[in-house]
């Protein structure tokens, strides 16, 4: 139980701050509901436009979810406390990102797959979509945390400007993935590619982010 303590602490902090937890999820739902309203229902290609809208809204929501992910702890001094105690900062960053993925990324992936049933009404593609969404939300979270840690006190616009170029390759892969899902060809190659990217940055970026935060604290 002792091992899980930092995880539960961070989870407590996130859950109690509904603006940071429920906010992004509601915005995602709002976008996915607003999407069919904007498309002329009579036109049948609702499903073609569905995937791009889904991926762009995931990108947007992950950006909102990480807006002040580090700023809050930076401003109230608990980061300084953490720096002094000999706990490793990069482990804390890893935990923070994991908790945000668990409480925001996973629900959004589930909702995304759920809305997919609504748009394309076939269960198979939604099940294929779910792991891809789960992995790509985690990757987006890590990348946006990197951008936000760089522009910690200077507002999230700068953080987004820095991070967007980094997220473009992922969007290209997701684009290829949609055609793989629609035509059901070599779907697993793309999934493993995404998983490969995740497995590289999941540990590398927290180390870099913790050094960046140390620079801010100096």
């Amino acid at each position: 139980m002792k091992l899980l303590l930092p995880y539960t602490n961070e989870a407590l902090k996130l859950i109690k701050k509904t603006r940071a937890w429920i906010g992004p999820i509601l915005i995602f739902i709002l976008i996915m509901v607003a999407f069919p309203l904007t498309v002329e229902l009579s036109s049948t290609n609702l499903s073609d436009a569905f995937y791009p809208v889904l991926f762009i809204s995931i990108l947007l929501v992950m950006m909102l979810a990480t807006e002040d992910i580090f700023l809050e702890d930076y401003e109230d001094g608990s980061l300084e406390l953490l720096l002094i105690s000999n706990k490793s900062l990069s482990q804390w960053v890893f935990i923070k990102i994991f908790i945000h993925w668990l409480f925001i990324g996973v629900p959004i992936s589930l909702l995304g797959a759920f809305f997919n049933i609504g748009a394309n009404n076939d269960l198979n593609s939604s099940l294929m979509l779910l792991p891809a969404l789960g992995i790509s939300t985690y990757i987006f979270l890590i990348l946006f945390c990197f951008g936000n840690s760089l522009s910690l006190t200077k507002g999230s616009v700068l953080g987004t400007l820095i991070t967007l170029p980094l997220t473009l390759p992922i969007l290209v892969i997701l684009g290829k993935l949609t055609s793989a899902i629609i035509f059901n060809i070599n779907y697993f190659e793309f999934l493993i590619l995404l998983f490969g990217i995740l497995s590289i940055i999941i540990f590398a970026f927290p180390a870099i982010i913790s050094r960046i935060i140390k620079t801010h604290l100096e």
Partner: protein
Amino acid sequence: MLREILIIVIKKFIHQFASPKTYFYQVNRLYPWLLYISLFIYLFAIIWGLLFTPKDFVQGHSYRIIYFHVPASFVAQSLYAAMAISSAVFLIWRVKLAAYLARSIAPIGAMVTFIALVSGSIWGIPTWGTWWEWDARITSTLILFIMYLGLISLHNSFNNFDKADKLLAYLAIIGFIQIPIIKKSVDWWSSLHQPASITISDKPSIDPSMLYPLFMSMIGFAGLVACLVILSSKVQIYIREKNKSWVKDHV
């Protein structure tokens, strides 16, 4: 024990050699030569390329923009690489000069990327009929331009120079790792999107008579941009080291 001595020697060498003072005086001596030689090479190459090479069989005369576009986009990417390397040197060995260099390269890199972008899209008008075509090379140049803007705005938003330099260093290194990834994914994406007819992305296999002026214009353009980097680094040195004694006696 030997390792410690080695590190101390390297550190001493770097700090002695890479001190802003020695750099400043060396560069002052080198600058006029570099400027005039590269200006001569560049103008010679442009005149040669524009006026004395035969018309391209497919694109007609509009291919001559290659003498502007290709050197610019090549220099834009190598400037980013130079920035990443000097950032790495700054982070590892704490060499202040490397941070000044990285900071001085950023605006010039943005400028060069911008003119590469504009020349690429102007070149697109006769070849594709539109000024903007999602060709792989143009898109990755646009992304590179956005990354430069991100670097400059990041550095400008901190008044503590030391903090700004470190943050710029981290972003430059991560950005540098991203460039090949972005290039590959954009090529991969655009290869599906647009059949590889006349694209600027692959090195156009042109006959040698057109190739020599291209290499010359690349060398000339790189020299000119190096002069700009030298000027910009002098500006940084004046800003950052203004209360150092040697700067005062120099002025």
